[in-house]
């Protein structure tokens, strides 16, 4: 089954880190990505630019409405995602627990929708 791991964390936490700590944190993500690849579970994933770079778009009464900023303001922001392919939720959960974001933020695990037929 395919699952998306959505990584939520407080963005401001990153800028507060000393350069050496930032480097160590980035290395942890690299190692995690590598481990996912080695296990044959990695399907894709990326870190995202901060929410300051986000734009929301919707159509209201036929006119597109564009707003600066993310869809939902919250203490934690979506900062990246992984797309993985594993046998079941237990496997997805154990990958989520290993993700560095689980230690300094939250990882949401969602199965991909599979169209019937």
């Amino acid at each position, binding site marked *: *089954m395919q*699952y998306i791991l959505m990584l939520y964390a407080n963005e401001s936490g990153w800028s507060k880190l000393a350069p050496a700590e930032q480097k160590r944190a980035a290395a942890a993500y690299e190692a995690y990505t590598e481990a996912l690849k080695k296990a044959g579970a990695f399907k894709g994933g990326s870190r995202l630019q901060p929410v300051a770079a986000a734009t929301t778009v919707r159509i209201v009464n036929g006119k597109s409405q564009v707003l600066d900023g993310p869809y939902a303001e919250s203490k934690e922001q979506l900062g990246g995602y992984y797309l993985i392919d594993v*046998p*079941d*939720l*237990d496997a*997805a*959960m*154990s990958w989520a627990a290993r993700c560095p974001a689980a230690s300094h933020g939250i990882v949401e*695990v969602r*199965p991909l929708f*599979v169209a*019937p*037929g």
Partner: protein
Amino acid sequence: MSGRDVDTRARATADAVARRSYGKLVAFLAARTRDVAAAEDALSEAFASALTDWPENGCPLNPEAWLLTVARRKAIDIARRRRSGEAAAAQRQLLAEEFVAAAEGEAIPDQRLALMFACGHPALETGIRAPLMLQVVLGLDAKTIASAFLTSPATMGKRLVRAKSKIRQAGIPFRVPEREELPGRLDTVLDAIYAAFTESWTDPGGTDVVRRDLAEETIYLATLLADLLPAEPEALGLLALMLHAEARRRARRNAEGEYVPLAEQDPALWNSQLIDAAEALLRRASALGRIGRYQLEGALQSAHVYRRRTGLANWPEVVQLYDALLALSGSPVVAINRALAIRELHGAAAALEAMQELVPDMRLNDYQPYWAARAELLATTGAIGAAHHAYEVAIGLERDVAVRRFLQRRQSMLTPD
């Protein structure tokens, strides 16, 4: 035999198989597809067929296999009705493979343990795990479960449906967890069963049939779990704890239906068979050498029973067990009971002091046993006014009428000196 007798026999056989094998058949049908709802639908159609077929053609030699064959055919029909194309074909293939394995004389593999772990999965809402087990493993209907858990059948039905969809959509596996994750995952299953069992205690007099049945059914679940995991001491400990509590059910009410605390119960009313079974389980558990919450709670029950039966005070052991339990759980509830045991050793003042450490814990403000214990202790030390107030709060928080009356009686016995 008259037609009526045949009917009765067919129904009795179907009932017996349902009781014994429902969970086994659901587990087998749903293990690969993870579609519990479809497995249950197929099985209930199979039971309906049995009730028309068996009176006519006689009960089959292997009713389980008969039901499985029919249920599997129904499952394919259901899959065909619900889906089309590749997904349905894949599902039919899976069902067919398993069917062949079952039909070739093999005994139906018992996957109920895997089913219990799926129902008690941490990804499911905490409160629905026990109801789900009762329905999926034992075959209880939503209406019965709802009344046992004091909710409406419609609400319970919706929550059960949602949980089953989550199992299927989120890919919750039907699998006994690996050794390293087993203890944690087993805890959530044990907690779910115990929560359902304590729910049944709102009517310890056993006057409410639904609630008495809930106690019986949860004991059945705990027994099944202990049978399937004979080397897991906490599974044995939970069953021991539940059997101890069940053994004293009758003694907790007097002839007038009033609540009788443990210290005043008549041990002759206790069920010795259940107590012996609980003791044997605790011995087996302790031989496995891994202590845990449920074994300690079972051991405490055992210590109370021993004291009341022999008249030998064993309070130091009791306090020790509470210390161990408190270290393990950090639960304020345990701390309250520990304080009450300390009273027996060092008096009410010492007990109040032990309990005083808990006061900042806001969770206790609406916890009845805290106020009841506090009232008892204050009364003993002669702080009548404070005791009166504590009883007042305890009475206001109690939902069991008999216990409420018991507390009111205690309160009225307070005499200012």
